[in-house]
């Protein structure tokens, strides 16, 4: 029997107080995610239960019980406090998927500071933009990434501390750098958790938009209420489950469902901190007897590409429940997973701003492969007319997805960008920026983005950011960036550029431009194809018409361009 039971029954008289009661929370109480994920679980008698089984390169393993996570997160908190870091200060976590990332995240929350996790593959420019926006006080990182932090330290006066968690003493520390050894640090006596309330800030995740710089999505401790219940009902985590969320906590899935969800329930989770390969993933599932696996369409399609034969080499019979997030999961992948694993991946739809699942397929509910499923109980979802923002009642008609604000994990603002935050609401609905249809049975079907943001491998990339970075390359005069269809990643970045005189088009120039963006922004933002053009299509006022380039890449009709407004 699944945790949710009957979806239809749950819809009746649903109230978020179901989650509050299970967590023992009442309106006005102290609510601290760090405490809920560690101390509370220990108080429930699960102190010796494994919380984290971590595996790195070469099969190196580390294990942590809930009591270990409690103590070590207290150590993080005590250490940060000793530096003068206090509630509401922003503390960036810039690490690979090492135990310090997961445990440090909770340590930051325990002192009331705001955790700002950033994807460790970000280049120095991407890192700087995000730290600068948040005016981050401290960054916790590891030896291999210190070089990137050093590149931006001079232009980041607000960044007072660079904390290195695995310093081996070989490199001389520079100004503002200090070390923290989680295991060697003395356990603090009488560590007091900061008394955060429902609306106290918790996490700041950055996401990209079509224009402007990345936006810092601010969440609060009350988000736990949604994250706990969606984890329980959709991921269906039960006491003896061994859970694997493949997402990196540099992104929202990795915190909402890679830390907060499972640990607030007291579930053992595994983390694999190595690069992707089909064999290493199957080996990991077999070795740790993973039962619940939450992954992403890009990874699932990569596994499909690796073929069915390799699966026969492993015993994957421990798997009992699979789910997916990041971009729409195509029907073929759903059907394939049912065939080879005996369980279909259930697609879940949500985003950084929503903080928790919004539309999902549920255990024990009929799956329509390719559909995003139905709204989570308590979520009012519809599709809206793109001009009037009124709900569309006609079945099968395309509209903008809209959610009625008010669920616990909804973002509270964009950091220092209230104006853009407000622009996300129309006619009383929150607009996530995607288009969809709803069928006669109430299932949502993804159609596409409503803007130019590129969704590559489940991560959003801003064309504006890539275009701006391209202009810093000495060979490039103008650039336009669009999504290009991709079999595995759904979309990848494609750049159209015009060159300065004196530059010859050749393979090495293309490679040079690709690497320039990869190091400056991130591997995700790197154009996988560059097309050299004599000029870019523009409006009469000189704005580049990405829409035409996008239509060309996707084989769509570009329509009548003569009627375009100057500023379109």
């Amino acid at each position, binding site marked *: 029997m699944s945790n949710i039971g009957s979806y239809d029954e749950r819809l009746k008289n649903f109230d978020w107080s179901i989650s509050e009661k299970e967590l023992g929370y009442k309106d006005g109480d102290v609510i601290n995610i760090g405490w809920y994920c560690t101390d509370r679980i220990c108080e429930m008698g699960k102190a010796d239960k494994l919380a984290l089984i971590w595996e790195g390169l070469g099969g190196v393993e580390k294990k942590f019980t809930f009591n270990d996570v409690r103590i070590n997160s207290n150590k993080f908190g005590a250490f940060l406090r000793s530096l003068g870091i206090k509630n509401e200060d922003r503390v960036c976590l810039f690490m690979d998927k090492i135990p310090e990332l997961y445990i440090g995240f909770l340590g930051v929350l325990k002192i009331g500071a705001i955790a700002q996790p950033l994807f460790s593959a970000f280049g120095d420019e991407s890192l700087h933009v995000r730290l600068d926006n948040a005016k981050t006080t401290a960054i916790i990182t590891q030896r291999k990434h210190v070089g990137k932090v050093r590149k931006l330290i001079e232009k980041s006066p607000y960044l007072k501390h660079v904390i290195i968690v695995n310093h081996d003493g070989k490199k001389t520390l520079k100004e503002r750098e200090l070390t923290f050894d989680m295991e060697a640090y003395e356990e603090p006596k009488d560590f007091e958790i900061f008394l955060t309330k429902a609306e106290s800030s918790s996490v700041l995740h950055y996401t990209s938009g079509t224009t402007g710089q990345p936006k810092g999505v601010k969440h609060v401790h009350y988000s736990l209420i949604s994250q706990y219940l969606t984890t329980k009902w959709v991921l269906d985590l039960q006491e003896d489950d061994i859970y694997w969320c493949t997402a990196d906590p540099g992104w929202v899935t990795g915190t909402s469902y890679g830390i907060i969800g499972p640990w607030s329930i007291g579930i053992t989770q595994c983390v694999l901190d190595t*690069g*992707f*390969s089909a064999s290493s993933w199957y080996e990991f599932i077999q070795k740790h007897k993973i039962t619940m696996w939450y992954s992403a369409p890009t990874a699932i399609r990569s596994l499909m590409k690796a073929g069915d034969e390799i699966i026969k080499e492993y015993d994957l019979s421990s798997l009992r429940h699979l789910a997916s997030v990041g971009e729409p999961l195509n029907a073929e992948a759903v059907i394939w997973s049912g065939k080879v694993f005996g369980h279909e991946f259930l697609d879940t739809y949500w985003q950084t701003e929503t903080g928790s699942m919004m539309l999902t397929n549920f255990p024990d509910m009929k799956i329509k492969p390719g559909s995003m499923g139905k709204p989570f109980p308590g979520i009012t979802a519809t599709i809206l007319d793109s001009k009037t923002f009124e709900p569309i009642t006609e079945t099968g008609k395309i509209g903008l997805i809209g959610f009625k604000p008010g669920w616990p994990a909804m973002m509270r603002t964009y950091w220092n960008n209230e104006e853009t935050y407000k622009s996300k609401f129309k006619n009383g609905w929150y607009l996530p920026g995607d288009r969809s249809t709803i069928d006669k049975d109430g299932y949502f079907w993804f159609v596409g983005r409503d803007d130019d943001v590129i969704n590559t491998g489940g991560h959003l990339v801003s064309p504006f950011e890539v275009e701006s970075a391209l202009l810093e390359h000495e060979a490039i005069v103008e650039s336009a960036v669009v999504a290009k269809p991709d079999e595995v990643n759904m979309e990848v970045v494609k750049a159209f550029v015009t060159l300065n005189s004196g530059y010859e088009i050749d393979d090495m120039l293309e490679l040079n431009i690709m690497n320039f963006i990869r190091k400056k922004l991130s591997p995700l933002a790197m154009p996988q194809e560059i097309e050299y053009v004599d000029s870019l299509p523009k409006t009469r006022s000189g704005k580049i018409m990405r829409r035409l380039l996008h239509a060309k890449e996707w084989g769509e009709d570009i329509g009548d361009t003569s009627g375009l407004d100057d500023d379109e």
Partner: protein
Amino acid sequence: MEEMKDVILEYVIEEYVEDEDEEMTYDTPLISGGIVDSFSMVSLKRFLEAKYKISIPDEKASPEAFDSVNKIVELVKEFIG
């Protein structure tokens, strides 16, 4: 003529290795070791194709085939006439 494996190792160190203390050998795991991710693999493939004037079909460019300098050398040699 410089050996192919030295050229590739040097390129990998120059372009992808962030930790300058990391000891790199011809067998260091690149993909499974997290040094080169799946997105960056595209640029490494492009380098090999440009440098050795070859074309590596996508189906041959698997994470396993790119997982060490020695494996990459084997792959490239398949396509050099």
